[in-house]
């Protein structure tokens, strides 16, 4: 029996999800744990959050912080990466600094973020910015370096130079790889949301998890927060993949 590819793309992952949820349910039942929640209890927890009217608020808060931090990271990271990719000296000067800052986990930055920004939205936005700006910059640098020289030479033969060359050739040719970097960075930015919201902001999915820990035996809400973060992460990834299919993005790939 063969399914259509489109049906397959839905049925197969759903099958895996069903198996996973069943496995989870019975694992909790068989071990007799009354601390770790079953999938059913998590769904009940989610419904409770919806009834209280906080789920939407928290999703909006987290999405806003990630969007703001991530847009800032793109606004800084893409131009910086393009410049460093194009000008060897700039790369020589700045790249080591980037490689030093890049591996530092945003969790390590939490105390600094509170000291600089207090307990406001600025602190988590700063942490998300930090988490995403380095992968974006690094991928933009690599993207420019990987452009086939034949494009540049051909453009120069036609007399295209300077800003025009950047706009018409370098940027479009680098775009697909930059987008791959953006997709990875968006994953990281969303990954960091829990840590970023550990600062005493009082909204967001990360806050939901921290708050549920404070609330005593509410591990159903902890897992509900995890599930929401996962599902929204999936949605974000689908969106960015769509973007990679655009015509303007594709010509860079057709070498």
């Amino acid at each position, binding site marked *: 029996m063969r399914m259509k590819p489109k049906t397959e793309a839905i049925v197969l992952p759903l099958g895996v999800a069903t198996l996973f949820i069943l496995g989870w349910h019975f694992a909790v039942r068989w071990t007799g744990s009354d601390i770790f929640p079953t999938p059913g209890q998590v769904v009940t927890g989610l419904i409770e959050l919806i009834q209280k009217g906080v789920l939407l608020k928290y999703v*909006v808060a987290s999405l806003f912080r990630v969007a703001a931090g991530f847009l800032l990271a793109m606004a800084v990271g893409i131009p910086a990466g393009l410049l460093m990719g194009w000008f060897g000296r700039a790369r020589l000067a700045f790249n080591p600094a980037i490689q030093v800052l890049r591996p530092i986990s945003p969790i390590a930055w939490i105390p600094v973020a509170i000291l600089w920004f*207090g307990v406001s939205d600025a602190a988590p936005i700063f942490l998300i910015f930090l988490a995403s700006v380095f992968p974006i910059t690094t991928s933009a640098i690599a993207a420019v370096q990987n452009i086939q020289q034949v494009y540049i030479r051909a453009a120069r033969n036609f007399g295209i130079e300077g800003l025009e060359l950047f706009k018409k050739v370098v940027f479009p040719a680098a775009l697909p790889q930059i987008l791959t970097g953006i997709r990875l960075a968006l994953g990281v930015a969303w990954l960091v949301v829990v840590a970023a919201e550990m600062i005493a902001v009082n909204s967001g999915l990360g806050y939901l998890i921290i708050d549920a820990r404070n609330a*005593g035996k509410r591990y159903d809400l902890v897992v509900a927060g995890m599930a929401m973060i996962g599902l929204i992460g999936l949605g974000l990834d689908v969106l960015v993949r769509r973007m990679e299919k655009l015509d303007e993005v594709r010509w860079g790939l057709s070498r």
Partner: protein
Amino acid sequence: MSKLTKIVLGAVGVALSLGLLHAWLNLGFDPQMALGLKEKEEGSAEDRFRVGFLPVTCHLTCPVTDWINKGMAGKGFYEPVRFSGFPEIKESIIAGYLPATFMLAPMAMALRQQGVPIKIVYLGHRDGTALMVGKDSGIESVGDLRGKKVAIPNRFSNQYLLLRKALAAEGMTIDDIQMVEMPPPDMPAALYAKAVDGISSGEPFMAQTEMDGYGKVLYQAKEVWPDFISCVLVVSEKTIDEHPEWVQELVTGIAKSGLWLEGGMDQRMKAADVVATQYYNQDPRLLSFVLSKPPDRVTYSKLRLARADFEEIADLALEAGVLTGPIAFEEYADTRFSENTTGAGAYSWKPK
């Protein structure tokens, strides 16, 4: 306009609308007020000073004072800000974001010694700490803790000093057990999963293990250290200089609400219910349990600063290496606000 430009503009648009939605849903931003359709209300949250607290019974007087004032005057005079851990509280008062907060007593003293301009002005509670072990663990006495793993909230916590004191009474030292630091909210699950053998922090996290049937009390704080203090009210010196009236109002409020909490079980149960649902976001049964079984599990009278209490803490903290040298009471404590509470009675207010 190219498709890519549209996408970029779209993304910025989405971020902006998320920002507006977030401001409206979570930050109390009122679109009508922004457009000038509505007047600003008197005494809105941003006009009041912030007071930091954690959802533990050691900090209960913070929400209770706010609740009583809202009930009596229709509004509170400060903004209680809930935190999730002591490190964040510590950083917020260092950064100047918090003018006042509840904090572990040894932590406040150590910060003062490290040059952070803060003063202890009042206590928040007495007692309200226990050491819990697994019900079927076979641990019956402090002596049985030898070689076992015991969790405390923080090395700057008074629970740590309490544990040292309890061990010393049995002729043991801290080296006879394995000590781990753990955020109190994670302790009940750690005890349940037998990741640790004993846990000690402020309530309600200890009572939770008892209520859920897998933990038992090895000692209550008062059995080892009568009139035990875990947390104190700390204010920045800047606040004392610029707004001594805030500090006085807050200290007097805590004194009066503390006495109010001692004014009968009805009041305690009502407070447990309101604080759990409106301030702590916890199961109200848990706070009711802590505040009633037994009623002196946590107490809220005798909150004035007393030199002897603190000198004992300072001595133990010095011995434990929490403080790096002797520190004078006057250096970390400012007693004048506490002295002014003399004669203050309980709030005369009945909740509806």
